[in-house]
């Protein structure tokens, strides 16, 4: 079997991609309107929503950047993962019920629709839509790049495609993604997410057992090796230190409820009461899949320190090297398919919300009405958005070899700081005002972009994302408290009392 390792891996990935294409064709027949395209007509069952929710959370960042970060900085990166239970809990407490009610009451098909209904303001709708487009560009580019890098690693191991270029891999992987997103919209996305989620859970569990068997003493031996080399890396705050870790705790914990691609899925369940079962199911799936993030990173760092494996050219190679060195070919095939699943499940969600922002929300904010024939334009813009993001990914890759992980985290941080206060707090507090919302979004964007683009670093590993998020939270509530209490539409006011 070992002799056919590359063929098995390529076969698993190709089978997975064929499945995505077929799902797109199947979903196309069920997509008749922009509501079907963007929110699946609010007709999904709890298992579908739960799997779609968690598989969209754990992106290529989790499968490529995550293990790379653990390899590079040790336990610091754990904080992005272990906070998931808190993040999901807050997301459901603050968002799930009210977003679903407003969506049904006002026939909303996007997050900016919800915000516009809540604040009765096209300005807030516009700012949220712009935030989504900006965040989507960074995040989607990251996902496409991750997909292409992994595909190149897989195909270059075969004789036929030994010299395949990154651009070709971007084209192939983007083509599959675009096909099923354009044909089947969100319906194709969520049903591929179901399979993608299942693959990711299986992959995460199997990888944990493989990782535990690399050293005779299991995971404890691996962490002991790391501890002996540099104790801080194996201690709770890792190599990056206390404030970097707590920053991720804050941004990834509270920030989950500000991720538009996730909370939009909370609008899609058929019955509002399903939220009670969606929450634990999503969390369980996430935890199973995230085992891969932690276990690969720890074992690869220990293996390199111990001399079992040569130092990696890039931290992001941790997962692929682990699979080629330690995993059975069949398992490697499942995990590589799982990796593509993770990347695609997040990418399709981003394509969906980005497209909604461009063809539905921005025109509505400017002209007061949506464009004609939304479904047609949704498909056109999905293609254009994916092509622009792919070009951005290639440019970033060749002009600036920044870690995939950092780009991914930047996208998350931008959404968290801009959207969490306005949506998660705003949906539960009648006193939130338009001025508060505009100030919070503007400040979050400004601090995030300036600190990222200027490369400014705060002392003790405090991140720009953390500063942006903490500031936007305080300003959102503070400005709202000091501005005139808004007059809400009667139906929205009654929803907020439920």
């Amino acid at each position, binding site marked *: 079997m070992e002799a056919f390792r590359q063929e098995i891996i390529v076969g698993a990935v190709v089978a997975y991609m064929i499945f995505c294409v077929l799902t797109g064709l199947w979903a196309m027949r069920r997509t008749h309107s922009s509501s079907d395209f963007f929110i699946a007509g609010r007709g999904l069952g709890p298992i579908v929503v739960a799997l779609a929710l968690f598989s969209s959370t754990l992106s290529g960042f989790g499968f490529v950047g995550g293990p790379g970060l653990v390899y590079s900085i040790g336990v610091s990166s754990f904080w992005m993962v272990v906070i998931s239970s808190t993040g999901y*809990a*807050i997301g459901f*407490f603050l*968002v799930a019920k009210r977003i679903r009610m407003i969506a049904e*009451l006002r026939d909303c098909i996007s997050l900016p629709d919800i915000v516009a209904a809540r604040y009765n303001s096209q300005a807030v709708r516009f700012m949220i839509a712009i935030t989504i487009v900006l965040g989507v560009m960074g995040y989607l580019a990251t996902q496409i790049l991750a997909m292409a890098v992994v595909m190149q690693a897989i195909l270059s191991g075969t004789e036929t495609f030994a010299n395949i270029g990154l651009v070709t891999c971007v084209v192939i992987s983007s083509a599959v993604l675009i096909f099923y997103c354009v044909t089947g919209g969100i319906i194709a996305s969520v049903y591929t997410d179901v399979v993608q989620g299942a693959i990711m859970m299986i992959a995460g569990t199997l990888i944990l057992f493989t990782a535990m068997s690399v050293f005779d003493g299991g995971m404890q031996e691996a962490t002991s090796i790391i501890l002996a080399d540099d104790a*801080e890396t194996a201690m709770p705050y890792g190599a990056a230190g206390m*404030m970097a870790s707590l920053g991720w705790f804050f941004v990834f914990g509270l920030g989950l409820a500000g991720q538009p691609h996730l909370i939009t899925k909370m609008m899609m369940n058929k019955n509002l*009461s399903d939220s009670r079962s969606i929450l634990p199911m999503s969390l369980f799936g996430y935890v199973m899949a995230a085992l891969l993030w932690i276990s690969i990173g720890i074992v690869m760092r220990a293996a390199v320190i111990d001399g079992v494996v040569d130092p990696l050219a890039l931290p992001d190679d941790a997962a692929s090297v682990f699979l080629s060195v330690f995993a059975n070919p069949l398992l490697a095939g499942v995990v590589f398919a799982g990796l593509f699943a993770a990347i695609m499940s997040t990418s399709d969600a981003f394509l969906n919300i980005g497209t909604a922002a461009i063809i539905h929300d921005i025109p509505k904010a400017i002209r007061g009405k949506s464009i004609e024939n939304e479904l047609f334009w949704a498909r056109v813009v999905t293609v254009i958005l994916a092509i622009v993001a792919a070009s951005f990914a290639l440019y970033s890759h060749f002009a600036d070899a920044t870690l995939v992980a950092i780009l991914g985290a930047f996208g998350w941080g931008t959404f968290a700081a801009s959207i969490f206060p306005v949506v998660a707090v705003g949906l539960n507090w009648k006193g939130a005002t338009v001025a508060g919302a505009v100030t919070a979004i503007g400040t979050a964007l400004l601090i995030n972009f300036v600190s990222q683009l200027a490369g400014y670093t705060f002392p003790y590993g405090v991140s720009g994302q953390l500063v942006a998020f903490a500031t936007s939270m305080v300003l959102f509530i503070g400005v709202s408290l000091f501005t005139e209490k808004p007059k809400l539409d009667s*139906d929205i006011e009654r929803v907020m009392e439920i």
Partner: protein
Amino acid sequence: MRSKLIYIIFAVGVLMAAILLAICLAETVPDAGGSAHPEIAGLQVGGDGAARLEHIGTLGFAFQCLLLIQITFLSLLGISERYRTNELLAYMGGSLVFMLIVAWQMYSGHLEYLETGETGYFLGFPSATAWATYGTWLGAIPLILIYSLGFRKYIYTAEDEEKFNVLLAEKSERSEQ
């Protein structure tokens, strides 16, 4: 507390921002955010843990505790005011205490290791790290139980469902006219 929750959330947010500012202004130590591994390219090391915590350890732990407190208050904000009963507050309080205990075990375990250089292991990780990993993961389980098991009592009761159905019926009437 029940009706003035947003003021408490605001106060906690301001305190957290103040702590963040104090940390940024604190005396810095070299490589507080980690440095390159001396021998292996691509790896970072933390170096002297005691030095890294010397000026900000207590502030950082206070920030962590306030964050956990904020998480609990925010979760409470998601529950309608009329359902914030003493029973619910007791559950939420219990959940917060559990999370604070986990945070303390992690922080004090880390300090203890820095002093003694010795640590036990639990399920593959040094004790303090095991608290961080498993404890943090499990720390929110009480919140999830409150949400899932208390859904019909605190989140979306039969009365709420009825009110929402009335709203939907009014919407249908409007669209028919």
